[in-house]
């Protein structure tokens, strides 16, 4: 299957301040964020962003606080206007849209979930969920039917008449999710949607999102500063630092080959055994002893299988094909080399 680019961002720059445009050239020729702030009192939000987001996938954008994640995601539905650059969605130039087109784009094509839920406190759960639908011009009755369906999908059946303040954070964000899903937009923008939630609840929400995505195949842009979350739900991950994309790729790419120490720092505490798969290890010539496991088995599962089978070598297969074999020793080594060899990862630069 050829993957189609849904959202295309080209050479995007955002400089906050009254005369942003006049400073783009300086940034292009190398002026950094601190210098721009000090000399010209403008804040460098984003620089030189080029990103293709694939249809039907979850694109995670990661970075520390202040790295420009919120700024980037708000360019996709033009809540923030770029200083320079281009944004295409389904080959439509978002920046060329008239006010009316933009409004319809926001009503029908892209919906959003917010970090602090952004629900209307004076409206019930149901009345919050229909917000986007009424913006689309639907009659209240039909909107309520559709909204009720989505509330059920996120597990809020029976809570329709509560007010947001009567719900826990996790439940409020389910309302936020239902409100966004109800509009049937094919793009879902989620700005740290789960960051405000407790770890257990967050994990529940990730599960709900993944389950829904199995069947909905939306194009989701998901922002987080939590690598575990990124690895769990992201098909692709892009890492932002000071407004610049420092690395993009699959989670395996990022864990195996961090582009610099900033990324290295991010990944140093993760559970590599859970992220890495057998296919990413250097394989020896296939031996005949050992158990056969698929190349996309995680190291964690492979170790468990080896221990259970009381064997110490795996034959890695892809479909019917034998790719090679790998020993328990190598698996353990790959899974644990994180902190001791963090220096080695840096030598990549």
């Amino acid at each position, binding site marked *: 299957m050829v993957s189609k680019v849904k959202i295309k961002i080209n050479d995007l720059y955002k400089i906050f301040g009254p005369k942003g445009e006049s400073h783009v050239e300086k940034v292009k020729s190398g002026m950094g964020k601190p210098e721009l702030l000090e000399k010209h009192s403008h804040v460098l939000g984003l620089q030189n962003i080029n990103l293709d987001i694939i249809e039907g996938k979850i694109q995670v954008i990661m970075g520390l606080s202040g790295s420009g994640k919120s700024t980037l995601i708000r360019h996709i539905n033009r809540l923030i206007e770029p200083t320079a650059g281009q944004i295409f969605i389904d080959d439509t130039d978002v920046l060329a849209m008239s006010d009316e087109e933009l409004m319809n784009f926001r009503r029908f094509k*892209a919906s*959003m979930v917010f970090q602090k839920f952004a629900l209307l*406190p*004076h409206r019930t759960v149901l009345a919050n969920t229909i*917000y986007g639908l009424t*913006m689309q011009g639907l009659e209240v009755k039909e909107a309520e039917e559709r909204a009720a369906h989505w509330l059920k999908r996120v597990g809020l059946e029976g809570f329709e008449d509560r007010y947001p*303040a*009567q719900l826990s954070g996790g439940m409020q964000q389910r309302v936020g999710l239902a409100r966004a899903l109800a509009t049937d937009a094919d793009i879902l923008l989620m700005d740290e949607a789960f960051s405000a939630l407790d770890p257990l609840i967050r994990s529940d929400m990730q599960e709900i999102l993944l389950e829904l995505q199995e069947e909905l195949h939306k194009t989701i842009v998901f922002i987080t500063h939590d690598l575990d979350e990124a690895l769990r739900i992201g098909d692709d991950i892009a890492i932002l630092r000071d407004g610049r994309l420092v690395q993009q790729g699959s989670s395996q790419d990022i864990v195996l080959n961090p582009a610099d120490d900033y990324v290295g720092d991010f990944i140093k505490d993760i559970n590599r055994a859970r992220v890495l798969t057998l296919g990413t290890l250097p394989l020896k010539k296939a031996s005949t002893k050992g158990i056969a496991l698929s190349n996309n088995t995680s190291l964690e599962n492979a170790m468990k299988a080896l221990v259970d089978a009381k064997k110490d070598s795996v034959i890695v297969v892809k479909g019917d094909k034998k790719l090679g074999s790998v020993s328990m020793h190598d698996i353990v080594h790959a899974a644990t080399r994180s902190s001791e060899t963090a220096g080695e990862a840096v030598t990549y630069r």
Partner: protein
Amino acid sequence: MSLIDWNKLTITEPPVLPRELLRNFKKGLDGTFRDFSRSYGEALEDFFNPLLMFLKWFQDLLVSTPWPIILLIIGGLSWVGSRSWKMSLGAILAFVAIGWMDMWEDTMATLAIVSVATLLCIAIGIPIGIWMSRSDRVQRIITPVLDVMQTIPSFVYLIPVVMLLGIGKVPGLLAVMIYASPPIIRLTNLGIRLVDAEVLEAADAFGSNYRQKLFQVQIPLALPNIFAGVNQTIMMSLSMVVIAAMIGVPGLGVPVLRAVSNQYLALGLMNGLAIVAIAIIFDRVSQAYGKRLQKHREGDHGV
């Protein structure tokens, strides 16, 4: 001619405008305003005539309505506002006492002017407050005007109002409104400005237009503040009752004025207490209503 009267200037007397210049200045201003009121006073009176008619009609209506019905309405409104039988009963008893002390008619007149003044303040104040919240420049211009309206002694603006419109209900109403409208304007502005930025962003993200954002998000979220403004406006218009009486507004202020000039202690006290009673009822009922408005905002898990 010099702008300072040098003869008068000493170490204890600050520089002062020569007497003649000062007199001419005052005369000029008086004359200009008098001419203005001569040529436009009548037009202005015509302009305000519908208001006068309405005010008269409303007051007559209150006075001519049988007292049991008024008591029922008072009790009913108190209940609607506060959902409390005690409050309702208290309000009815207060009005029975007012009638018993022979202050019924004056009280109705006061209720009429306070209600009309409050309604007008709301009708004018909320749009101005919204306008102010939309633009920092408008806010910068209007805020000092509101400060002046609230701090300038009422007697000072009574002078031009009376010169223009004479003595009567309309100038009285204007005086009350000048004093009582700032809180509703201020709190509408404040309420809208305090609306959570992320909620506004959500409204934008779902494609709301200007009106939808204003009426479905900003005003509802600002409502508790707007309501606090309404409450203050009511209180402040009640506090103007005596001053309004000085320029011919009927009501509880009139006997108070008479009591002051004739040293009738009991009369002044009774009417003053009647004003206080009305104020307390309005305040408690409207506060209870305001609280109920935002009850759902309180965390209340598992209800």
